[in-house]
């Protein structure tokens, strides 16, 4: 996964950096691309207040200088360049930002980066192995468990934890224990089917 991540930051032609570059081009030369993420969240960027934060994300150590207000979600998206985790409500109500911290699913929008040091953060980008997609990712594709896809990374991270917790044995259980992830497209029946499909492989692996 680190390869893909780095590529998305440096290739300079993904959708995200294009938007950032376009937005900033009136005042900033595009050569500032590498620093572009810093320009995107002015409210969080007060370098005089920045503190050293070390996060372990998908097995890689990341040393950052962050405003103490930075959440894990913003650290991932705006500072590390891992934009798979999504910002939906930013208040812990929708589950789009779900990541695993030390194997437990949490909402990264209500977790301060400073408080998440020395813990293992796993995001959607860290889920797939060398052999291809994680069984839950494949199941979401096989079962057509999304429409717009915005909630999907959070759904998948939550679903992996749901299975590992032992809460995916019945349809009712899956619905109850996936209730922290809202899908505005209402793909719920297919999400239940995907969780059921992937569960045996995850429990075996």
């Amino acid at each position, binding site marked *: 996964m680190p390869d893909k991540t780095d590529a998305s930051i440096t290739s300079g032609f993904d959708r995200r950096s294009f938007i950032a570059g376009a937005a900033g081009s009136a005042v900033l030369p595009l050569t500032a691309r590498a620093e572009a993420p810093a320009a995107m969240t002015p409210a969080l960027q007060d370098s005089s207040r920045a503190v050293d934060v070390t996060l372990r994300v998908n097995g890689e150590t990341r040393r950052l200088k962050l405003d*103490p207000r930075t959440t894990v979600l913003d650290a991932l998206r705006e500072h590390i360049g891992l934009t798979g985790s999504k910002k939906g409500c930013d208040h*812990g109500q929708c589950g789009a930002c779900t990541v695993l911290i030390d194997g437990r699913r949490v909402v990264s929008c*209500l977790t*301060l980066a*400073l408080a998440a040091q020395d813990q293992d953060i796993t995001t959607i980008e860290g889920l797939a192995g060398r052999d291809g997609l994680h069984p839950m990712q494949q199941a979401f594709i096989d079962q057509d468990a999304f429409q717009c896809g915005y909630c999907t990374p959070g759904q998948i991270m939550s679903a992996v934890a749901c299975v590992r917790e032992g809460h995916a044995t019945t349809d009712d259980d899956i619905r109850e224990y996936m*209730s922290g992830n809202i899908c505005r497209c209402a793909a719920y029946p297919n999400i239940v089917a995907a969780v059921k499909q992937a569960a045996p492989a995850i429990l075996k692996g």
Partner: protein
Amino acid sequence: MRPFSYQRATDPAAAAQALAAAVSDGHLLTEASMQPLAGGTTLIDLMKLDVMRPASLIDINPLTSAWSAVALDGGDLRLGALARMADVAAHAEIQRNYPVIADSLKLAASPQLRNMATLGGNVLQRTRCTYFRDVSYGHCNKRNPGSGCAALDGFNRTHAVLGTSEQCIATYPGDFAQALIALDASVDITGRSGTRQVAFAKLHKAPGDTPQIETTLAPGDLISGFTIAGRWPRSVYLKARDRQSYEFALSSAAVALDIEDGMVRDARVALGGVATVPWRAPEAEALLRGQRLDDALVQRAAEAAFAEARGRKHNAFKIELGKRVLARALKQAATMEV
């Protein structure tokens, strides 16, 4: 969110001292310049909303190993305040001996939030009243003492019908607290002058004329744990809400019964979603004790529990709903196999 500085707690006493020093005379704990950070699910949310505005946070998660034990010692249950809701809900001994506790935790929030949120923070979570949470509303006596209450004649469908005042009708939102108050739990507190234990029923304050004061905690106080005497295998937490899952209660009931040969030896009743504070219903309990539980008695107990309830334009339905939820919870508890 406003800027803040961050530090980690090293030991409970030092954290209590630091927190106490951050409260100026006459100021509210909830407005103290330093706030303790545990799970963060309420605090960070309210800081983003600009409802809470601490200048510094003291992260008490480093105290987790000291304050998160869950243990059945003899006849007593000890719950560490930094235990996470999900872990306590999944604890086999608690599910067996205290289903009302396990279910009150399991039916709250979402799996993610239950993985984060602590028991101590849970009982201190603040109301979901929209007029409190949205700072663009000027009239909120809890947030802005003396400014009035927009909920009295506003959109008050989710608001309280018990324990209200003319200054505030905001609902206490939690579930677990109802289980604690029903079971006569006590709270362990570490403060600036040492540790002490108080009845859980004395932790929260009804709004009265000072809705901005929500608890009896003193500057520097940290909740370290809870103790429950005795076991309550015949106990139920029933929660009615707009969605089947991941929603606050419109009405809930925590009940625990001790029944022998068909007679109720002891009964504990608490109500959630309908009151301004965790709400014990002693009138209902008194009717049930020493009686044989049947439909008529259950109905009388439910009527008694809501005798003082006062509905407003949009929330009057909660009185009838609350009675039915309590009646059903009592019948469920009575027929449990224990």
